[in-house]
């Protein structure tokens, strides 16, 4: 089985301490933006994507939704499951500070030109066997182009 534990003593303390205690406090501040069941405002109208003229970058931003579970593109942004991709275009592989790269990527010798990035995100495990980038294979050429354009644009900010 399982797990875990035999830590009865602390549990007992918690349980007994709770006996006869007052209910837990409610919110000190409660901002009701909208009642449940009412319509949400149309969010598309104010989408930042609509404000840009560059449709490729806009498409890239949308396509980047696949990536944001693991990556940010943000100056000084934190590494997450994957490294911060700010300024990645043109950089040497495995050079983002503070990220724990796979040995495979560290020794790959790749420089992230747009072409290399394209080839990598088309199928990371094929381009660099042993990489720990498990997700991210993007088969659509147009989406890859858009994502790279978006990363480049976001890095210029």
């Amino acid at each position, binding site marked *: *089985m399982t797990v875990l*534990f035999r830590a009865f003593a602390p*549990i007992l303390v918690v349980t007994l301490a709770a006996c006869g205690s007052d209910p837990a406090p409610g919110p000190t501040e409660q901002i009701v933006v909208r009642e449940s069941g009412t319509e949400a405002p149309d969010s598309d109208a104010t989408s930042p994507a609509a404000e840009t003229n560059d449709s490729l970058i806009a498409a890239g931003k949308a396509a980047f939704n696949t990536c944001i579970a693991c990556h940010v593109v943000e100056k000084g942004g934190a590494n997450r499951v994957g490294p911060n991709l700010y300024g990645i275009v043109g950089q040497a592989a495995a050079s983002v500070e503070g990220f724990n790269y796979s040995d495979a990527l560290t020794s790959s010798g790749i420089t992230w030109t747009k072409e290399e990035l394209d080839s990598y995100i088309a199928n990371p495990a094929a381009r660099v066997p042993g990489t720990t980038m498990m997700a991210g294979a993007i088969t659509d050429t147009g989406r890859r182009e858009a994502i790279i354009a978006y990363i480049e644009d976001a890095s210029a900010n």
Partner: protein
Amino acid sequence: MTDTKTSETAPKKGKWTRRAFIGAGVVAGGALVIGVAVRPDNPVERLSPMVARGKGEQLINAWVKVDADNIVTAIIPHVEMGQGVFTSLAQMLADELDADWSKVRILEAPADAKYVSHDIGREFLAPNLEVPAILEPTVGGTFLQLATAMNLQITGGSFSVRGTGQRAMRVAGAAAKEMLIAAAAEEWNVPAGELRAENSMILHDKSSKSAPFADFAAAAAEQGLPNKPKLKSPKDYKLMGKAMARHDIPEKSNGTALFGIDADLPGMKYAAVKAAPVVGATVESMNVDTAKSMPGVLQILNMGDFIAVVADGYWQAQQALGTIDAKYSKTEGDTLNQDALFARYASVLDEAGDEGGDVETEQGDVTEAFANAATKVEAEYKVPFLAHATMEPMNCTAWVRDGKCDVWSGHQAPLMARKAAADTLGIDTDDVTYHNAYLGGGFGRRSENDAIIMATRIAKATQYPVKMIWSREEDTMQDHYRPSATSRFQAGLDKDGNAVSWSNIHTHLFDPQEAPTVPYYNIANHKIRKIDVPTHLRFGPWRSVDHSQHGYFIESFVDELAHAAGKDGYAYRRELLAGSKRHLAVLDKAAEMSGWDKPLPEGHGRGIAFVPSFGTIVAEVAEVDMTGAKPKVKKIYVAADPGFAVNPDGFAAQMESSIAYGLTATLYGEISVKNGAVQQSNFHDYPILRINEMPEVEVGIINGDHKRLGGAGEPGLPPLAPAVTNAIFAATGKRVRELPLSKVDFA
């Protein structure tokens, strides 16, 4: 009778509504339910409305029901968090009942006081209680009441099979069989002694009569509960000791299994939460200008100790939460840093000197023995805080309305969760219905009530159903951590290298109390002390609890003694265990499996470690390759004696998963504190072992005492770290005295 095949074996998750509980006591068709004989009366009538509402179902006692199609359902008072306990416990019950395994189903017992795991309560309340016969069925009534009062319905302590299985599931199965036979004897007008059960049938060999259990279920429920149902001896086991397939695997493979995070209700909204980064601080102000106008947002709540955003979708809630800039109150914890904490441990241990602290165990005179020793060995070891990192992040769904509350989650102690929700709202526990689901990993984390309390508070404020999900960042930064600790040892060896004194002082003692002790080693003089060093961080049980630290401390130090004595680590432990047959058998098996004496390639090393815990004796040998930049753990040999492995495949799986969990901690696991807040936040800085890093694992099981079972979920973990670090020492001569290995420079 309908022929039921082995499909549809997935356990049904109980959905226990208050209405069902107080509903009319009439059960359609009647059902036979069997109350384990530790209870003074057969609670069938009381329990049937909760667990035997199906058509044609008959409860025989609290733990067994039979339906019209002769399906036997084992009612399991424990939770399934991947450890396979539903299957093992059902095996124990079905074996004693002589049920047809292909017609056995599993039902998780409701979060009701009548299903408490009272054996756990007994062990806590009176660990030294003499139970004349280990399966004595009448013991426990007193403790049942106490356990009920304490709200124990806990899955933990590697206890389910060895406690509930041995003392409740088997007894319940055997009792149900005797009750069915008694009912059949009356019906057929033959002596009960001429009847037997097989494959869910009652057989009368003399007359070649046979009939399914179902025919006698209702009459069986009317029989008195047997005082001492006769239990099988191992030679008669049909299911126990066999690797029966896990009942929950099909639904976990095809994605239909429901976990706490899968709760889904009409009109349900989602909450994302962020607690004050320093535990104990409160939210003084929050800037919600951006969040207020973000899509889907319904409410923004300052709950004092945390902020919650409630939205139509979880993503929307989390995105809006991310834009909120909050200011927190100052606390005493704000200044705490990890280095300073270890420095504090050191100064506290320095101050304690030779006599300070609380003595946990003492025998002989260590001072004199140490003074006269031919060789003196001293060492200090350190381990960091650890998070649990369950695959399913913490979550809870709650709905508060009309003075009542429903809560959905996966919790290791459903009754405690129910009580926590009731106390949070200031209402009676009877007004809370707690729905438990599968746990996507527990490891002790899901024995805490914090998520239950938070979700209940949010739901009270909104009055509609809300599912609260913690982000991985919250999960990592707001855990109840395995404590960081420092442990110091002194030992004296005589001129032959035999240990004559063993002194240890360490920070913290949580549980189990025996974790720092080594009564199985032949050392005449020993003294073990502890000192608590409180911090503002929350501690919690973590797989194997204190054995996770002390296994590493003790077995590293034993290896240092062996080295000081100029002896091999395996041979040295053999001497320390001389006379303890069961212990030696396990140690020898691990050594034999690993080919201990065979040479390894240059730069490779073998290490051994031995830790009995939770009733199971375990020795592990690690093979480590030190030729690269980082240690590569190639192979782990595990020898274990759990008394009797009820499901050997499940037992081996628990050893393997303990190694995966323990190796994660050994290689990487480190939670550190800066300015009072936890520095790690996600898997990039709190990595989990990857599949290519998993060593090959070989498990050898010894069934050393079928009357005294040990646990499975935890005992595989404590020997792992020291086996690995001892192997590193064998390969390189470098002694690792602080974990994790990622901090050590092997260049």
